[in-house]
Structures are given as C-alpha cells and as structure tokens.
C-alpha cells in the first residue's frame, strides 16, 4: 500500500502493465515528453522509451484508428483521449470498428485496446470539456466501459482493461486526479471488469454511484440522518453487475442512482429500467435518478456547483423518498 494521487495511480498501473507485457504501448497527445496534460502518464517515456510511449499529432481519428490496427495485429495499445468530447471526432473507430472487429473477423482479430478518457465537470472547463458521455458507448455490443472513482479503481480497472482481450474504455473523472488515498498495487490491486463494489452497507436504501459521483454518494451516506444506505460503486457500466445491484436492492427495497450528466437519457436509465423491471413488486419505492439538469454544463462557478449533484442534495432526495415513498422532484422542477 502506498499513498497515490489518482493521476499517479494511473501512471503506476500503466508502468506495471508495461513492465509485465512488452506489447503494451501508450499513445496520445502530449503523453510522452510532457507526461500527459493531467500528468497521468508521467515517467513512462523515461522508463519505456519513445517506441512504446508516443506523442501524437492532434488526430484522434488517426491515432485511435491506429490503435485499433495495432491491437488487432499484436500490440496492446493504451490511448489517452484528453477530454471525453474529443471522442466526437473519432467515435467511428471505437464503436463501429474496434467493437465489431472480433465479430467481423470470426474471432481472429480481437482488439485488446484500452481507451483512457478524462471526463466530467467541476473544474471550470465549460460546456465542451466537462461532460461524461457514457451513452456514446451505449448499445454497442463488443465494447466494455469502466469508470474510475478514485486512485484504487483507477489503478485496478485500468490494469484489468489492458489485460482484457476486448476494447475497453476507461473513464477517469478529471476532478479526481489530485485525490490521494492508499492504493493496493500489484496483482492484489487489479479489479476485474464487470464487478461492482459494495462500499458501505446499510438498510434503507441502495445508493448507486459511478465514477465522479461515488465520493458524493459516500459523503451523502456518511452524513445521513434517520436512515442508512448501502453504497455501491458500479465501477463497470458495460457490462454492469446486474446481480450485485439486484442483491442489494432486494434487501433495501429502494434504489437511488446518482449521475453527473443530464437527466434525459443518462446512463442510469439502463440500471433503473432493469432494476424496476426485475424487482417489480419487491421495491418499496420508485427508483430515483439524481442527476444534473438537462442543460449544457455551465461555466460560472456557482452554476457549475449547482449543476453537479452534491451530497446534500442527494441526502435531501433520499430523505424525501424514504419519508414519502414517492418520487421526489428534482431541484430544478421545485424551483
């Protein structure tokens, strides 16, 4: 166990995999000489050299596509997409090529590629550099998607992603890069994809977080008054751990999903619809999605702070759900 900031945990995971497997290479804008704009690839160039750690031109379609070809023919590339929105200029290679290569090659050309993507609001980057965009990867059989929620998951999920034989997207909430906690490194620190993590047990409600909302949800549970919450870090969204969530909700009979993105069409709809259907008759209250409002991410600090759901707001929503048994209104409708 060592104390690591999340960005160091990422760099450590990369270095550990690169030491174990000479076919792992790292590509992206400013990942080599500069060690990444978020310093999440710091030190890799020095240790592994310019053949394996490469700065790219500003050509997301080009280098993501190159990673697909490299992965199909004998490397395990890890690509950094600096801000999630940049996938918008390269999505084809991820969802239409990489995700379907195994299928379209009768299994002969799997694509063991990892795409690291910084995401999320809370750092004042404005409407085009603050989204989470999980749903761009939705409805894409062949693709996996994991989301880091702090140093340990950043480390463990990334190592698992690199080892995975399919294309895996790992979202890294950028406001967590400076977070510093104890991290178990090495084999013991690897976190299998597709397995959720119960971070706290409780009785009255299951609080489900993903990525940046996991700290919020833990915080909310911590300060709860009059109820206790079981907190789950979903960790992987594609495929998500249906059994773990159902198990918990079967016990608590209430589910509140906390998302950072807009309400309409957010990732939580998948979980909410599934749980509501599978546990019909078991639930004591409707499944609640606590989200941001349906607006682009605003810049001004007080607005951005209001935009991202905070612990206090989560507690209010949960409290109201438990006391009334009815769907609480989101803050912007109560305005």
């Amino acid at each position, binding site marked *: 166990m060592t104390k690591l900031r999340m960005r160091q945990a990422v760099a450590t995971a990369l270095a550990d995999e690169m030491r174990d497997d000479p076919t792992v290479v790292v590509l992206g804008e*400013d990942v080599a000489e500069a060690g990444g704009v978020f310093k999440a690839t710091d030190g890799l160039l020095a240790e592994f050299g310019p053949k394996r750690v490469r*700065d790219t031109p500003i*050509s997301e379609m080009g280098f993501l596509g190159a990673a697909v070809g490299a992965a199909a023919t004998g490397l395990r590339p890890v690509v950094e997409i600096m801000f999630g929105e940049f996938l918008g200029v390269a999505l084809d290679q991820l969802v239409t090529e990489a995700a379907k290569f195994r299928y379209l090659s009768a299994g002969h050309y799997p694509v063991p590629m990892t795409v690291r993507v910084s995401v999320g609001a809370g750092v004042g*980057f404005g409407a085009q550099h603050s989204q989470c965009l999980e749903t761009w990867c939705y409805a894409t059989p062949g693709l996996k998607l994991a989301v880091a929620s702090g140093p340990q998951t950043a480390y463990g999920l990334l190592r698992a992603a690199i080892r995975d034989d399919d294309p895996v997207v790992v979202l890294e909430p950028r406001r967590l890069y400076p977070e510093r906690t104890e991290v178990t490194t090495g084999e013991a620190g690897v976190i299998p994809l597709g397995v959720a993590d119960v971070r706290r047990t409780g009785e009255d409600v299951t609080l489900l977080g993903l990525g940046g909302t996991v700290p919020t949800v833990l915080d909310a549970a911590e300060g709860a008054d009059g109820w206790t919450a079981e907190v789950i870090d979903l960790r992987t969204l594609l495929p998500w751990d249906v059994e773990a969530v159902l198990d918990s909700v079967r016990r608590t009979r209430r589910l509140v999903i906390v998302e950072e993105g807009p309400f309409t069409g957010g990732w939580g709809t998948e979980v909410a619809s599934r749980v509501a259907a599978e546990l019909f008759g078991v639930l004591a209250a409707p499944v609640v999605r606590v989200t941001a409002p349906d607006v682009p991410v*605003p810049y001004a600090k007080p607005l951005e702070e209001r935009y991202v759901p905070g612990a206090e707001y989560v507690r209010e929503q949960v409290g109201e759900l438990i006391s009334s048994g009815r769907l609480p209104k989101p803050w912007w409708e109560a305005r």
Partner: protein
Amino acid sequence: MERSLRNVPVPRSGSGGVMSTNLERRQQLSDPVGRLARMIEIREFEGRVKALFLEGTVSGTTHLCEGQEAVAVGLAAALRPTDPVTCTYRGHGVALALGCTPTAVLGEIMGRSVGLLGGVGGSMHLCDPDVGLLPTFAIVGAGIPVAAGAALTAQVRDRDDVAVAVFGDGATNIGAFHETLNLAAVWRLPVLFVIENNLYGEYTPLPRTTPISDLADRAASYAIPAEIVDGQSLDEVSAAVSRAVARARDGGGPTLLEMKTYRYSGHSRTDTGPYRPDGELEAWSKRDPITLYAESAGLLRELDAIRADVIAQLDAAVAEVKAAPAPPIEAMFRNVVAES
C-alpha cells in the same frame, strides 16, 4: 420568407458605460493609433488574465495569446464587422480585436453576468454577433467547417460577406481541416483559412507532429491559393488578408494564410513552456509585434502614452468585472432550446 428572418442574428446591446461600444471599437482599427492601442490592450489584457488565474480568481483554464497580437488586430482591421469569424479557445485577442469590450471578454472569463454570454461560457466560449464573432470553439478544428458554412450562407444568399476561420498549426493535422479546405475549394466558398502557426500544439513542437514546416504548402492538395505571412507584422497580416478577402468577395474562392507567429506564454493555465529551447522566446521577442508596428507606423514616441491610456481603461474594466455579480442559477436554463 418571414420565417427565415429569424435566422438573422439579433444585435446584442453593448455593455455600454463610458467605454466605447463593440462597433465603435471595431471602427477604431481604421486608424494606426487605434491598431497599436488594440495590440497593447490585448497584451496587457492577457497579462491581467494570467495574474487573475494565478491568484485563483479565474477558474478552469485560459489560453493566452501574447506575441500573436498582430495576427488578431491585422485580421480584424481587414474585415468588416459583418464578416463572420470562427476562432479557437485561444480567442481573447481575436475577440478584443474584433471589438468586444474588455469588460465583456473578462466578464466571460471570470464567469460574471457582464460577460459576453453572461458567464455561462467561460474563457473558451466567447461570442459577439455584432462584430461577427461566432461562438469560439474548444474542440480543435471544429470552427473550420463552421466558417465554410458561414461562407455558404453568403454564397447562397448573395451577400458579399467573407467568412474567416482562425486556428492553430496543430489543427492542420485534424480531419476537419482537410475536409473543409477540399469542400471550400470545390464550392469556391468565400472563406479564409488563417493558421496561427505559433510553432507548438500544447507542449509539442510542430516538427514532432508534422512532417512539413510550411503549412501553407498544404493548400496545393486543394488547388487553392496560399500565402506565408509574417505574423508579427500587422501591416503584412492586413495586406495578406485584404488580398484574400478581395479575391473571395470577387467570387475567387478560398485562401489559406499561414501566419508565422509565436506565443510568449505557455499553452494554458500554469504552463510556462519549459519544453521550449533556450533563447527561442528571446529571439522572438526581438520581433515583438507591438514594437515593430510602433516603429513602422512612426508611433514609438506615443507608445508610453497609449499604453498608459490602455492600462487605465483595463484597470477600470477589471474593477468593473470584479464588482459584477455571477449569473443567477436561472441563467443555466436559458438558451438551451428555442423558447416555445
């Protein structure tokens, strides 16, 4: 017919006060003193933004353009306020040059209600339809096709506007650059592609990402005219832009202009540019666009007075913005979709 009029941007009211309005400020560029003053304003403005960022008053990110002032002002001076311009996140200078007031630009950077967008956009998202500034782009290359589209409007509606896309050297490696230059050539669109070649894309020097050194050469792939321009010379910038604009207004189609320039600051935020070779900044500083222009326009002796004036106005603007409120929470719900 009537319906389409809804497309015409509604002029926004200037932020007013004793300061000049955005359109008056644009007009000031017709005069050498006005042009020099504007370059100095940009320089001093960026210095203040840097200080405000470092003291924590500006959050998020900023991309400064000190050293590139001649490109911004030379370009603006050669355009009409009705000519639509797309620009990048490194847009403070272009916005000020086009006429946006320091209060409105800084207001946006600081997320205040006096900002160009009332504070919901931030440093990377400036916009002012009065002076032709479309929303600036935080995605590299995204403004390039959008400018071509503005040129398409001019062509289809028989307006003689010329659209301009301003972007960096690094952006010439992204697909949108290629697709748009080709499209603009085929359709002979009245559009200028202006590369601010400041030698770096973020922390990486051009040669490590680009196998040629004169980006203007890429115009040959689309059979469009191109010029390499001394981006530190306001007069040369203006002259090259004027030539290209005249050709475009005349139905001669697009032009690619490569402005050789340099950014004195780092890429963004706290970057100081440690990746730059020793002496590079000093060498470029010797050809500082403000000094060069003051010299060539015979304004060296007025320089201090002009600067003092600019600083006084900027200090007032900073004070005004600092005193201005953040937007109300309500502001985040406006302008998402058309009000029905």
